[in-house]
């Protein structure tokens, strides 16, 4: 196990380095010179050269790469290309927002999906199973931005129950405000996840119910309810953990869009905006942090597996 973890750790570092390198060169391949836009009507070739020199963009791209790698190893992510904000502070302010949305959407998804999945599995091929499946398909195939806009219209504009945009931090505004600002964006993302998770739970439970040890448990005369709760559910937990790991993977894809709809400057919004503005240091720093979280969250999930399901062993 220890050996496995060490091997995975080495892999993780390589993947993170690969991501960082990929994004460094990808950004420089994108057409659109940030210098031209920064200068706007003041643009002249001389001014552009001067600004390029000032930002260190006149160096050979490989030298820039080596310098950047050196900076990272010293823990320095630099500052945004306009110099208005350090990459570190942008990430530190964005991360809690994205993480909060992800966490709450996971809670919402689990709350909906686990009971629904169990119901669908127990009443297999019944009307309830059909209804739950239909809901799942709706959830999966509904574009989240569209659902988000509708949620705003219903709960913020018409009913006036919840705020329509922005984020409130727990430390400044308290738990209630934080929660109120997060419900709608989390619901917009959580609906899709609930659908995916529900199908995992259903499939996992069905498989477990048909497996040998459940049959053994039944044969031993255990009550049906105890069989389901004691053995079946334990196994249907595995998909929940899987999706938790996947959650991290989906996190950015989902939040990029939803943060735009709800005007929340989380990591997703930060990244897309920075890509559009060709803010090299910001994109590079943010991707680096995202890749780290990504890779290590998955490592954690894989280790969690072995704790939940003793059948899985890594060598």
């Amino acid at each position, binding site marked *: 196990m220890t050996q496995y973890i060490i091997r995975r750790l080495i892999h993780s570092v390589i993947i*993170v380095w690969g991501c960082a390198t990929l994004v460094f060169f990808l950004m420089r*391949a994108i057409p659109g010179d940030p210098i031209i836009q920064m200068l706007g009507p003041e643009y002249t070739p001389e001014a552009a050269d001067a600004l390029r020199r000032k930002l260190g963009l006149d160096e050979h791209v490989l030298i820039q790469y080596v310098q950047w790698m050196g900076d990272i190893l010293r823990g320095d992510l630099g500052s945004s290309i306009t110099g208005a904000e350090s990459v570190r502070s942008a990430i530190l302010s964005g991360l809690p927002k994205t993480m909060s949305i992800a966490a709450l959407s996971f809670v919402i998804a689990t709350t909906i999906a686990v009971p629904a999945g169990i119901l669908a599995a127990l009443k297999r091929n019944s009307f309830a199973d059909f209804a739950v499946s239909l809901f799942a398909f709706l959830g*999966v195939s509904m574009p989240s931005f569209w659902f988000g806009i509708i949620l705003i219209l219903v709960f913020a504009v018409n009913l006036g129950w919840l705020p329509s945009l922005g984020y409130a931090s727990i430390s400044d505004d308290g738990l209630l405000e934080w929660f109120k600002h997060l419900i709608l964006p989390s619901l917009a993302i959580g609906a899709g996840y609930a659908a995916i998770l529900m199908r995992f739970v259903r499939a996992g439970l069905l498989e477990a119910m048909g497996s040998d040890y459940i049959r053994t448990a039944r044969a031993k005369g255990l009550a049906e309810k105890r069989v389901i709760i004691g053995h079946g559910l334990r196994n249907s937990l595995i998909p929940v953990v899987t*999706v938790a790991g*996947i959650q991290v993977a989906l996190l950015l894809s989902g939040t990029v869009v939803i943060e735009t709809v709800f005007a929340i400057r989380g990591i997703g919004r930060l990244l897309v905006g920075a890509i559009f503005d060709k803010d090299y240091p910001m994109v590079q720093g943010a991707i680096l942090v995202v890749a780290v979280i990504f890779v290590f969250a*998955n490592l954690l*999930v894989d280790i969690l597996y072995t704790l939940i399901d003793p059948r899985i062993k890594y060598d």
Partner: protein
Amino acid sequence: MINMSPDVATDVSAAAESAPSTRRRFWRRLRSERKVLIGLVIVAILAFIAIFGPLLAPYDPEADDYELFAAPSLDHLFGTDSFGRDILSRMMAGTRISFTVGISVAVLSMVVGVTLGLIAGYFGGWLDSLIMRFMDLLWAFPEIILAVGMVAVFGAGIRNIIIAIAVAYLDDFARVVRAEVLRLREEEYALAAKAIGASHRRIMLMHILPNTLAPVIVQATFAVGLGILAESGLTFLGLGVSPSTPTWGLTLNEGRDFIRQAWWISVFPGLAIMVTVLGLNLLGDGLRDTLDVRGVKETV
């Protein structure tokens, strides 16, 4: 879209034992699978519209001289959009484009992914490590960010969007195929073929590839729906196809500003996307059960 960590995916499929089923049993199960039937019917209807849509459309999808924001009526079954164009006609024209995007994404990521997975699984060793670490890289890179970056590099336009989405999803294929190949490589017929001196290429193409088809087909079915959904997400971020190409995603996006005064602009293309994803998922789910494929990732 679900990403399983590579090791888990391998474990799950290694644990699965698929019983070889005879052709007759296959058809009996296929018929008994209601899911496959419903899915097939939905996909067939959509394919029909995709092929003949332009002939069936009541109006020219480009004509913009009708009333703006006209509610659904007998003249315009799905109403008109914010430019005064008939939404039904645009959606019929868009069916072909959205399907082209979905199918192209699936085919492209399938061809590249299967090839990589086949090579990685068959040869193993450093080649396997190299390919799979590259796949891990694609997987760790947030899909939509990858697509945003690629579209930003190569520009918008339908071809580049297809490439961008396909690259983001090709690691799924590579992983599924590699796991299958690892299992098959040690099967008797592959060993026998090697023993009688068949070339690597022959063993890979003639003996191993056909046996990996089932999970690949299932995965591809899901990928079509994913491609269509991903296109609408990219359009939302301003990176979609050219505005003159009436994909469902574009119509849906153009309608999002008018949800209150003209719900029909976004609701109908949204429903079209849902029904398509539903049909493809039913088909994929059903095929998975029928072909007894394990270890293929859950849908979307």
